[in-house]
């Protein structure tokens, strides 16, 4: 069994894991970080998106073992203390979520987008989120939520 050491939301964790254990299952089942969701089995929906060494990745399509040595941020670690991340604020203010199931993945993906492109156009936001499916919102308010966060100080 591979032994992995990862820094998740600022805390270092070490575990022996099965080779086949998916990173998303490691986060959800081993670490109890259930904010990262599983919405599909073909790497298509983005519900499982987290940040691995600062980049948005689909944690359902990686083995936990591949993350050995990496720094991971999940939705639970995005806010700084009680202060919500601007995207979290944006999603609430603009009603960018309904059932909330896609939301953690959406926010984590949008965070990567805004890091690369702090002032995206509507089209750039839509394209930047193409790896994330939301079945509830029709994306209209998700786009506005990202715009809200983009202009936030």
């Amino acid at each position, binding site marked *: 069994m591979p032994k992995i050491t990862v820094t998740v939301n600022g805390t270092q964790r070490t575990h022996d894991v099965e*080779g*086949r254990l*998916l990173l998303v*299952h490691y986060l959800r089942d081993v670490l109890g970080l259930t904010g990262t969701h599983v919405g599909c089995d*073909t790497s298509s929906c983005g519900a499982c998106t987290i940040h691995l060494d600062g980049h948005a990745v689909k944690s359902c399509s990686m083995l936990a073992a*591949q993350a050995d040595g990496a720094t991971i941020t999940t939705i639970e670690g995005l806010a700084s203390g009680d202060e919500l991340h601007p995207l979290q604020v944006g999603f609430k203010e603009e009603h960018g979520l309904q059932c909330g199931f896609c939301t953690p993945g959406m926010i984590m993906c949008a965070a990567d987008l805004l890091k690369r492109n702090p002032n995206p156009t509507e089209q750039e936001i839509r394209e930047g989120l193409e790896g994330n499916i939301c079945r509830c919102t029709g994306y209209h308010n998700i786009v506005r939520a990202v715009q809200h966060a983009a202009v936030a100080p």
Partner: protein
Amino acid sequence: MIPQAVDYKRAGSVSEAISLLAENPDSKILAGGHSLIPAMKLRLNSPSLLIDIARIPELRYIEVRDGGVAIGAASTHHDIISNADVQSRYGVMIEAGELIGDTQVRNVGTLGGSIAHADPSADWPAALIALNASIKVEGPNGARELSASEFFLGFFYTALEEGEIVTEVVLPAPAAGSRSVYRKFMQPASRFAIVGCAASVTIDGGTITDATVAFTGVSADGAFLDEAVGAALVGKSASLETIEAAANAAAEGVELNEDHYASKTYRKHLAKVYAKRALVGACGL
């Protein structure tokens, strides 16, 4: 969806990866894992050992070499499209790379993994063929270098031999007056190419002096160089009429792919439309 039980080892160097591969008959190289792991989850692929090469430093670099660019096999799609040296030389690499999957996929998937996998609808193969790239592979019997059109042999099928890994892709220096583009018609669900057309055209004083046009998605046999289209362009003036005539020759005589989004007839039609669009872009019209 859970893969079958599998062992995992991280290789520290190319030579270690090659030895591990040789020692473990049922093993597989793991790069980004974004083709392999989805397949393992569906239990379509069940190796007993994964040899992770993604973090081998000697495989992840992008450097200018003889006016061209050399790219280590473990470079991610994102590494490539965000690289200034690639951006300034190869429009086709940027346009193709930006259309691979989504942000998350581009952050993890690698050039080497994509071309070794040789999905018949993958984007990089067409771009590499159009640029006449060479691909370096290394195995127990040493290293070899192949041209992209020698490398891609068919449906998930390449010239890689048992125990070999892709180490590097070299993009030749672009000729003066050349421009390369990529145009893609996506399957609406997977967003893989139904038709992807990569074109590289060199124009000298209004005349096309060199043209390579490659397709992906069109043929069940994977990416291919469409020599007829290129031949119909060279020596002609870079005009819409020239392009239309050349595009009309596209995808003739190939074993066409088909699925519920695009029949053979429609695919062939799209190949011509996308050849035209790519060439209009490559000729700067």
